[in-house]
């Protein structure tokens, strides 16, 4: 607390010969600070990424591994893997369709002048995001169970429909996954857009009002374009989230075992080949394909949004 050792400290640091003074110098200090990142990046990122590429060209059995060229990738040319790609793609596309426009509109609604209890609703809609996928999956698995008395079946029979085997059907199963995604992510995505709305100055809206713009005009001509940066961000993380989806399906179908693989995702296929079938080379190849797909989509999407253009 006290500043008494000032003088001695200065003497120590100016003594240029000792190693400790070098360590304390302004030139070296930044490298000491970033050292944890350099170590972690090399060991737990760069090495695994390179090794994933190498492994994808290898056949790996305990104790030894040999190069087999593109055989793992050829093996991926099979209907089950195509199904996994299709499932992940459909799921990602539909989550984008649901979880971008709706939260954007909700954020604008909640931000509007007439709205009251803003903080209450903002917090309440956020609560599902606090649950783990395991807990959320447990709830949805039981609520969408095939028993007569399960929540969804009592609900639709009360409305006069037949009871359903929700998770046994391809489309109803997908619907369940989407409802789960909406439940967990609606509030967060809304928060992102609300954070973006805070940065739009009131004056822009006021001058538009003077020009006679109605609410809809203000939304389409001011809110949506000015929310573009945050929209791009939400879009990008949603693509990654969608293609990385695994736990939701794992929980709904108790492990990786959905009937006729209706809930199999790309990461599910990776988990199956890598851990359940112990085919590490094949699993690594799935990872590389996943990486390629997410990179291509992100690149195309950023191009479409014009992020690489030099304007602004």
């Amino acid at each position: 607390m006290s500043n008494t050792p000032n003088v001695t400290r200065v003497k120590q640091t100016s003594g240029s010969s000792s190693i400790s003074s070098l360590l304390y110098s302004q030139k070296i200090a930044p490298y000491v600070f970033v050292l944890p990142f350099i170590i972690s990046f090399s060991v737990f990122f760069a090495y695994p990424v390179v090794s994933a590429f190498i492994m994808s060209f290898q056949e790996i059995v305990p104790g030894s591994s040999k190069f087999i060229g593109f055989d793992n990738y050829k093996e991926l040319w099979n209907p089950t893997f195509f199904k996994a790609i299709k499932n992940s793609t459909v799921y990602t596309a539909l989550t984008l369709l649901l979880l971008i426009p709706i939260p954007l509109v909700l954020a604008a609604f909640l931000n509007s002048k007439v709205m009251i209890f803003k903080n209450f609703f903002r917090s309440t809609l956020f609560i599902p995001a606090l649950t783990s996928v395991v807990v959320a999956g447990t709830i949805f698995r039981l609520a969408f169970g095939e028993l007569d008395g399960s929540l969804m079946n009592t609900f639709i029979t009360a409305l006069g429909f037949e009871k359903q085997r929700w998770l046994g059907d391809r489309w109803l199963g997908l619907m369940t996954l989407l409802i789960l995604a909406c439940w967990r992510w609606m509030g967060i995505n809304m928060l992102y857009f609300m954070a973006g709305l805070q940065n739009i100055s009131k004056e822009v809206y006021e001058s538009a009002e003077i020009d006679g713009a109605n609410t809809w005009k203000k939304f389409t001509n001011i809110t949506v374009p000015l929310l573009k940066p945050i929209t791009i961000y939400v879009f990008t993380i949603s693509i990654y989230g969608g293609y990385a989806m695994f736990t939701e399906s794992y929980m709904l179908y108790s492990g990786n075992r959905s009937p006729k693989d209706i809930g199999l995702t790309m990461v599910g296929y990776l988990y199956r080949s890598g851990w359940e079938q112990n085919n590490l080379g094949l699993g690594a190849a799935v990872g590389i394909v996943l990486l390629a797909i997410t990179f291509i989509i992100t690149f195309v999407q950023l191009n479409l949004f014009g992020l690489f253009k030099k304007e602004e």
Partner: protein
Amino acid sequence: MKTAEETKWSLNRVLLLLLFSALAIFALFPIVTLAIASFKPAQELLRNGLNLSLDKELLTLSNYTNLFSPKENYVTWYKNSVLITFTFTVLCLLLSSMVGYALAVYKFRFRNFLFVLVLIIMAVPLEIIMLPMYKLAISFHLINNMWGVILPFVVAPLPIFFFRQYAGGLPKDFLDAARVDGCTEYGIFFKIMMPLMAPAFSSMAILQALASWNNFLWPLIVLNSTNKLTIPIGLSTLLTPYGNNYKILIAGSVFAIIPVLIVFVFFQKYFIEGMTAGGVKG
């Protein structure tokens, strides 16, 4: 004229309130259903699934007492989860704030290059490196070990990014004054900058603790003996195609949410800042 405008606004207000009330019910409904189910006997769930029916005669606390009985592993999982979450969060904040701070405050040779590397980590789905990481964990003897869960992700890109932004926005005039006063570079960080970055620490602490508490895929891969599991992994082992242990599963799920809800009620602001941290890209 004016009254017409006012009624129009109030109609809008009513419609918005109705819409958001419906959404709030949608958000809370599953959790309330789960909470109710935790007071029902397991056989009732087995027979009728998860629903809202409430039979006062059947309500019981036995699921909760069972949760803490010594023959169940739930308490062990809880302890593991608390220990891993705590250790992970403390180390992650310490290390990531150091890195973020250095990237923001010092001008050194590889500064921009290192920042690009941080961004690259964020752009690669971690699922693709799970297999090589698993092999790595085996060779480091980290399998079935809490350090195996913690170490690979303890220097995390998002907090680095966030701390860099935050430290970049702080005034730096007095840093040289502190140096003249004999404060070392590390003293400046620990004694001056860290307290100034306290709000950033709060947001990131909540974000990282929540992520660690709920983390699934990596711990599922690393941990395999029953007494080493965390809550999410432990609970997931109770769901099998051959039958589910509802007793532990439901009450255990409720008990896993409770601490998070309590923290949320008191520190909402930091939750919201932490969760939207990624969106603050300049």
